[in-house]
């Protein structure tokens, strides 16, 4: 038989339970480790074949030659759709995906990021 207010018991229970939501900027829940976020580039491995540029659905990555056997990758974070196709298409595994996803900026010019992670630990942008 149906009666109004059937959800009452659940409401009372959740009154005493910990809320399921968190105050986002203060506390961050983060993304699971397999998450596809911002790209990471390793210039040593790159041979400048531009396979990633060809396969990128939104023309977000650009590989430029800056010296003998030295390449830098410029990624437009606004255009990038974080699909990871460039990581798969790169024959030399020069590109990796990190789990960083909070990339919003006020000034659009800062969204064009030059990745040349000279060494693994401090990839300066």
């Amino acid at each position: 038989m149906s009666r109004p207010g059937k959800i009452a018991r659940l409401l009372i229970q959740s009154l005493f339970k910990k809320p399921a939501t968190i105050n986002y900027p203060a506390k961050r829940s983060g993304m699971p480790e397999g998450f596809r976020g911002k790209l990471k580039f390793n210039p040593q491995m790159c041979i400048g074949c531009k396979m990633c540029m060809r396969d990128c659905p939104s023309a977000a990555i650009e590989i430029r030659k800056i010296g003998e056997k030295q390449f830098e990758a410029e990624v437009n974070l606004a255009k990038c759709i974080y699909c990871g196709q460039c990581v798969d298409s790169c024959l030399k595994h020069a590109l990796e995906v990190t789990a960083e996803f909070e990339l919003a900026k006020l000034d659009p010019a800062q969204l064009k990021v030059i990745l040349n992670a000279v060494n693994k630990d401090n990839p300066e942008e």
Partner: protein
Amino acid sequence: MLKALFHILIFPGLLFLFIFGFFAEYVDRKLYARFQNRIGPPWFQPLADFIKLISKQEIIPEEADSNVFKLMPLLALAASSVAILYIPILGERSVFSFNGDVIVVLYLLTVPTFAYFLGGWYSRSVYSMIGAVRSLTQLFAYEVPLFLCILASAMLADTWSLSGIAAFYNQHIGYWFCNIIGFVVALICLLGKLEKVPFDIPEAETEIVAGSFTEYNARLLAFIRMSFNVEMVVGASLLAAVFLPFGLNLPPAAVFLCYLIQVLIIIAAISFLRTLFARLRLDQMINFCWKYLAPLAFLQVLFNLTLKVVLPR
């Protein structure tokens, strides 16, 4: 003169109503969120909304009749704040009371609904016209049971003044239980008056945008939301005075605390009911009110009448 000014502006008047209104809205929204397993807004959220709305640019629709459009929110706010003066908050004596102020308070609580109707109708937008008409049709559904319940307990107390009712029930605590049906019915009707979820048909967000308040913005919308808060406080304290008359003869501080607790209990009940139900359609709401609430209210009146004859004075 100064004492009257103090009563109107400071204590039971505007300043107290504003602060208590914001607090009541905070309690309502926080409980509503906690029932839904969410954290809910910080304590200053209602104040922040009010300030944000006040600072916004005001746009009056072209075809709207601008005087009526601007006047209605203020009328609603004024009517609901005046009603507090007749409700006994500190002890058994309200600020102004005469034999018959129950009718005045109930009338003053109906004025905001008419103000929203006129405001909605004169903002000439299709949605607000439909919303305005709906708020009137809803008015006829919940008004009769609400009046009957309050008048039933007035009849038992054999006086038409709120202070008299409060005093009577304070002396004869036993009579309180016979009004329990009236209290439940009045609470449900208060939901209708405050347009809370099971009966928030005039302001049905998913059907007609914001009902009669679609065209309102900035300052006027702030006043409308403030008048809803004040109406919630006034309605809750009316029910508290009529149906929950405890501890009226303790020292003033304790009495004010009792009053706060009673009002917060009623607000908690309102927000619990608000979380519990889905919004009814207008036809379902009207036949619910006339099939269940009105008969219960009549039953309450008959019960009180027989009780008055049987019980010694």
